[in-house]
């Protein structure tokens, strides 16, 4: 949903970044406004996942230049937990397993960290339980999920649903979905996509990172960006994804070279 007067949620200018001294991002520009859904597509190694982790503040990546402004704040100066509490959410490509911590405890700690940040009283176990039950339905998750250890022994689809469950609780301003569709069968994909669509509103934004056009049939983007070599080469509407699916990435590269 594009609206000219919407708040700018994320503004990335000339972002460059290294991992272990190897440049991965080489001047990335992107602007996302409230209400919009963006998709970044690109071949393996193009820097898509790196970009998502840098937005969330992963310590393994070193930002060497440029800026990232999130709702008027310098995102790059914030600790990962402050980014989360301010409304950045990264759904992980590979959610981690945490044996020994029950899912419901994890969700509550996380939810209350954000409430505390916003000056609200923390929810106790009972009130939280009511809240989380309502969110479970959205993702067609069984209550048994809550008592299991975080992601331990979860199937690929269960892990991704659990990520979206966290997103549903934390209600971010910017949801970044890193290959949320990878490894999912069509039924699981529909559930995840329905969850994401239900969370969409006119004052939040979504950034999807994906290899596959299939996801974009279920979560329809306003913008599709093609990324390669650490930069965004071209941007279009959802029809760009179809073209990529049909023609591959080579023609984008050729056009880019021709335009230089």
């Amino acid at each position, binding site marked *: 949903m594009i609206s000219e007067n919407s708040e700018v949620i994320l503004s990335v200018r000339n972002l460059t970044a290294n991992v272990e001294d190897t440049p991965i991002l080489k001047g990335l520009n992107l602007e996302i406004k409230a209400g919009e859904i963006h998709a970044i597509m690109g071949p393996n190694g193009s820097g898509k996942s790196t970009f998502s982790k840098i937005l*969330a*503040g992963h310590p393994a990546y070193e930002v060497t230049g440029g800026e990232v402004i999130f709702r008027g704040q310098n995102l790059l100066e914030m600790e990962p*937990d402050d980014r*989360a509490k301010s409304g950045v959410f*990264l759904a992980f490509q590979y959610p*981690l397993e*945490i044996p020994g911590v029950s899912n419901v405890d994890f969700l509550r*700690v996380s939810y209350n960290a954000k409430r505390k940040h916003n000056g609200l009283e923390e929810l106790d176990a009972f009130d939280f339980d009511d809240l989380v039950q309502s969110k479970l339905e959205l993702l067609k998750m069984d209550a048994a999920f809550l008592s299991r250890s975080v992601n331990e022994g979860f199937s690929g689809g269960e892990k991704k649903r659990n990520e979206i469950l966290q997103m549903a609780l934390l209600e971010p301003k910017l949801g970044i979905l890193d290959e949320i569709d990878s490894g999912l069968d069509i039924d699981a994909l529909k559930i995840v996509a329905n969850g994401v669509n239900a969370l969409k509103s006119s004052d939040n934004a979504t950034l999807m990172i994906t290899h596959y056009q299939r996801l974009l049939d279920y979560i329809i983007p306003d913008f599709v960006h093609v990324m390669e070599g650490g930069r965004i080469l071209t941007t279009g509407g959802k029809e760009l994804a179809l073209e990529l699916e049909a023609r591959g990435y080579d023609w984008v590269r050729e056009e880019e070279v021709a335009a230089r």
Partner: protein
Amino acid sequence: MTIEVSTLSDTADLNLKARVDRSIYLSELLNLRSPTPLEWLNAVRDRATAIVQEQAIPTTRDEEWRFTNLSSLLQVSFQRAEAATIGYAEIQPFLLPETTNSRLVFVNGFYAADLSAVDDLPEGVLAGNLIGIAEFIPALADYLAMQPGAEEVFTALNTASLTDAAIVHIPKNQIVEAPIQILYVTIASETPKLNQPRCLTISEVGSQVTLIEDHVTFGEGVYFTNPVTEIWVAENAGVRHTRVQRDSEMAFHIGKTAVSQARNSRYTCTAVSLGAEMSRHNLEIYQTGEQTETTLNGLTVLNHQQIGDTHSKIAFSKPHGKSNQVNKCIVSDRAHAIFNGKILVPKPAQLTDAAQLSRNLLLSAKARIDTKPQLEITADNVKCAHGATVSQLEDDEVFYLQSRGLKQSEAQKLLTYAFAIDIINQIPISSLCTILANLIRTQSL
């Protein structure tokens, strides 16, 4: 050549001097004992005294003490712990709701009858102190100080100094529902004190009991506690033993648990060590019959400059024995954890199934862990698995939690807690699980 000879003799002289010093120090500890009111106990004490008199405080040249240096103990001159009184209100935080009427309390090694209560125990079960109930325990002399390993120096020191003890006797086929708590309270003060608690538990044929041994401290000051627990698990009996060491960080704690298991019996020990400047737990299990099952869960959490050492031994002797051991250590700051897990499977112990896992979490660059499985197997048809891991918290795990709004320190605490909690959850007393989980949550970093 001449130089070498003189160097050697110098070293030998130094070694001799160190040994003399260490044996003088040991005899000083022995001299702190008080006489026993029980005439017959003198024979037991005398046997142990003879053993102590031939020994010295071990050095790191002793294989069993390679990683644990007792030099700091030798710097301290101890006095005998005296009887002291403490109010019910003060020990209340250490009393568990599950053991309201099934607990024995010892203060500085002295039985505190006013703080103890055994009303919930079934008729026929004897629980009390040695001085009070010795005459009612059948064949007591066959059990007291009769476990293998009694010649070990600190065990012998305890026996040689024996005046009173916690005694639990469960008669044949008696199932005891209420867990029995044995609470050892040390009142620390400016004068360093030596305290030598003792426990003897006899679980007769077909009986079942849950024991909680808990070491706690009041006050500030250095002390040395040298507890010995002997447990006899008769044929087809089951004992679940929880041992919590939460002495103050100024304490020296050298403890022994010796367990003999007859055929078809089951013994579980969950040992949690959190306290003491220097602690050692010698945990020795002797399986004396066929088809006997031993489960050992261990958790040591150390910070600052604490040293915590667990030396376990499971000695199989008959076919179809089984053991399952998981030991975890969490070490931060400059602390040092040691685990040595000995498993002995002699020829007659065919079809033994023994598993041992040592898992360790290092939370700082200066923390140290020494872990060593020690399997001595001569039987040829056995299953013995062992493994050891030493790891740090993964950056990706910490980041995952941070990305959900937890501060880095909170994320580290939660992951550390998660590492520890499966051992805590083996404790069959829910109130104690909660207490320990909270302690670990707040103290581990």
